[in-house]
């Protein structure tokens, strides 16, 4: 059996609300993390991403200057000199299906709804370290494989050959159930 050693993880928390940053930092310290950096908006988050090279980023959606989805899009640049594969956990009060899909299509690795729980955050962090998905690049997407499992019987739309950003997908309900818990 293997366990994640949180003392070796460098984590960046990007949230404009100081109380929420303190809560997340407290949970991360409880898990054993010592190297936790904080940024209070998307611009500072991008700056800290380039200077501190975190292993995992936890990002809020609604923030001033640019939001969590925009920050994710800026990081997921395949030709970037910085690590475009860094795991990104979207921690947000938005739980609507359309928001989950937007975050996924921006390249978010994991989605976590507020109110935050210790167990749910821990599980998302373990997923990032132990079960990373391959990355897919199409003409209009670069990010973790949006299909969480490979099913031989997949009958949904073949979005990799399409240019539309929003695709109606019968797997959406299952996706939401799997990420919003």
């Amino acid at each position, binding site marked *: 059996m293997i366990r994640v*050693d949180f003392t070796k993880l460098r984590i960046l928390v990007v949230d404009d609300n100081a109380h929420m940053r303190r809560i997340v930092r*407290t949970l991360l*310290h409880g898990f054993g993390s010592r190297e936790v950096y904080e940024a209070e908006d998307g611009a500072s988050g991008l700056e800290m991403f380039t200077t501190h090279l975190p292993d995992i980023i936890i990002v809020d959606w609604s923030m001033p200057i640019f939001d969590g989805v925009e920050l994710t899009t800026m990081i997921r640049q395949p030709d970037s000199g910085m*690590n475009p594969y860094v795991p990104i956990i979207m921690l947000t*009060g938005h739980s609507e299906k359309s928001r989950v899909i937007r975050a996924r299509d921006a390249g978010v690795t994991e989605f976590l709804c507020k109110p935050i729980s210790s167990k749910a955050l821990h599980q998302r962090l373990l997923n990032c370290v132990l079960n990373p998905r391959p990355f897919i*690049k199409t003409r209009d997407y670069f990010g973790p494989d949006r299909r969480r499992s490979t099913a031989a019987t997949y009958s949904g739309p073949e979005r*990799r050959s399409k240019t539309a950003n929003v695709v109606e997908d019968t797997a959406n309900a299952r996706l939401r159930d799997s990420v919003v818990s």
Partner: protein
Amino acid sequence: MPDAPPSPALVPAASWGVPVESFTDHIVLRPPNRLKERATRSVGLRDKSDEEAILRAEQALELLSTEFDGWMKHEIDRLEIMRAAFAIGRDAEALDGLYRSAHDLRGQSATFGFPLAGEIADGLCLMLEQDGPPPPQSYVDRHVEAIRAIVREDVRGREHPVAAEIVERLAILRAGFLKPKD
């Protein structure tokens, strides 16, 4: 199985030495999991360090919770300021400020011990998120007043009958304003 070479436009210039599988309309990149190599350790079958880590984090949050009442008051004071600004201006900037404040309460109230306040904040956010004209000021005021009352009366949990009734009545009020979703 990989098939024909992809369009050159699909192949990242800087692939970080990541193995690439090429398909006609997409490529699959499998970055080596260096995080797993660096930040994991082997343990015995009876290891309970994951459960202990979660417990430690919950205990740390419990210690921090002595601060939550003050934080909730701070968030509500901020909501009140934003409500007053929205009542005067009712422009995009005022709406954005009110929305951010309500959105923070939606995400944090349950953690702070006031889940019903979070539900009301969620309803306020739904009205502010809707395209078209902003909600009537009286609707905003009722939501803000209800959140303040729940915290003032120290209504924690979801079982308080009057607070539950208020949440229900506000939902009915909102239904008259919110457009049905497609």
